[in-house]
């Protein structure tokens, strides 16, 4: 009850703050949407040239894939691990630690809160993409609903990944190297660059054992009809499993991070 109330207020604050930067967020989203357009054009060109389909994806499915991609990307932005350096060095973490609400909740709520502004911008932009690229795929209502659900759980999962990654800043001031490597791994292993079917089989196997796929390709497959009801259920299963596992990990790492911070100070 207390937590729900705090979430609600914090999310509203996040929304209000983001509202002040409406135009700025439009700029950011435009920047974000160019990335998948590039992939889309490249792979649609290839699929068309190769007789309509490669690796089981038709030209049209590539188009749908990368348009669905945009909502996933706009939604799954989390707290960049780089902010932790500043939080620790400038001592802002102290204010958070003397507040009787876990910092994770504050961060998550605040990020969740500003999503509506971004999604409000996303709707016209995605409609524009649909008009321009004319995907012929018509998802059913349940696919669309499941997709929205999966996008939200995917956001929570990716948020946890980034958050726990950021905690490494408590141990080293050179954590940015690790972030870079993880970001690259995510790009290749999540389905963000290309659908994983285009990758060599061993990469696909590897991706199945990591959380990244369930924050990108997993939700996308649901809406473009690359998976059935059972596959969708399994996808949610993987998402929740990862959220639970990484949630526990986050709790443990956070405890140790605070213990370490409290021992050394800043």
């Amino acid at each position, binding site marked *: 009850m207390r937590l729900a109330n705090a979430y609600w207020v914090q999310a509203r604050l996040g929304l209000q703050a983001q509202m002040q930067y409406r135009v700025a967020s439009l700029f950011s989203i435009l920047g974000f949407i160019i990335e998948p357009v590039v992939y889309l054009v490249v792979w649609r060109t290839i699929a068309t040239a190769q007789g309509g389909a490669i690796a089981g994806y038709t030209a049209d499915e590539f188009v749908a894939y990368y348009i669905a991609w945009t909502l996933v990307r706009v939604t799954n932005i989390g707290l960049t691990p780089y902010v932790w350096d500043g939080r620790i060095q400038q001592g802002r973490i*102290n204010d958070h630690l003397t507040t009787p609400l876990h910092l994770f909740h504050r961060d998550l709520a605040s990020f969740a809160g500003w999503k509506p502004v971004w999604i409000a911008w996303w709707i016209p932009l995605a409609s524009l993409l649909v008009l321009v690229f004319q995907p012929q795929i018509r998802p059913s209502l349940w696919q669309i609903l499941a997709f929205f659900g999966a996008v939200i759980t995917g956001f929570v999962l990716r948020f946890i990944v980034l958050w726990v990654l950021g905690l490494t800043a408590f141990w080293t001031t050179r954590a940015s190297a690790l972030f870079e490597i993880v970001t690259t791994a995510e790009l290749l292993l999540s389905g963000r660059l290309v659908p994983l079917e285009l990758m060599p089989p061993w990469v696909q196997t590897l991706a199945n054992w990591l959380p990244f796929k369930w924050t990108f390709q997993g939700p996308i497959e649901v809406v473009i009809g690359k998976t059935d009801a059972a596959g969708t259920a399994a996808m949610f299963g993987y998402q929740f499993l990862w959220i639970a596992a990484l949630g526990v990990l986050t709790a443990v790492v956070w405890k140790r991070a605070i213990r370490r911070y409290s021992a050394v100070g800043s």
Partner: protein
Amino acid sequence: MPVVSVDSLTKTFRVPVRESGLAASVRSLFNREFRHVEAVKAIDFTIEPGEIVGFLGPNGAGKTTTLKMLTGLLYPTSGSASVLDHDPSLRERELLKRLALIMGNRNNLNWDLPALDSYELQRAIYEIPKDQYASRVESFVELLDLGALIDKPVRNLSLGERMKVEIGGALLHHPEVLFLDEPTLGLDVTMQQRIRTFIKEHSRKTGATVMLTSHYMADIVALCERVIVIHHGRIIYDGALSNLADQFAGYKTITVTAEQLTPSMESYGSVMSVAAQVATVRVARAEVSAVARRMLQDMSVLDISIAEPPIEDVIADVFDSSEPET
């Protein structure tokens, strides 16, 4: 039942020894050398409910380290601290809800939003009942003169205005213990005064216990009857502010006004200022009455007054005189 009690509290930091140069930094990746710095050395004190205690000491004396241990930001190396019967290092929610830490030049409010919105968040986090919240906001608006400020985004406020809304936000939950670390840092004199008055008034009304560090002696004089002086990690004085001079200043000042001053004022003590008819002399405590008597004999004195030295000077003397032990 004391609100804060500290028992041989000690904090030692392990600081990596860093040499300059690329080779040295590569080497230090594998083999780091450390040196131990004792920031706080076995200090003891207790604070009773409702007290306002000034915590004094030069930079690096261990003030902030102590405050951080009392708020659960740092674990003690040894010894123990208890705040409202809780061990602060456990960082229990029950304790955090009853205390507040305010640091000067820090901002805990959302930069882009009006303070009132951030206050709402405080209300949710600290579970302040709606009606109480409304009346508290109202009273803070009046006492701190926040009327024109709480509707503006925090980033548009001046430093002093920001501190006012910050303090308002930090006290909304009526913390029972309040730790203030340099709350008036960088503020102009009127703003300092305003904040001082507010803290005093608030503590009187809610019975909050306050522990405060400040570089401005005016803050201490206005707020604290009791001071704890810490130097090189040790407490060197704990008692009434008014007795501080007795214990540490080995002198008083005598200001004398005479029809004509004797040319050799130095014979009474070290001369602090001298004008046509008025001179101020610093005299060892033990000799004050003897010197005063001599003055009265030597000159035709119009007025004479004996005073404690200014508190700033006393403090400066304290820190100069007690050298660190190694």
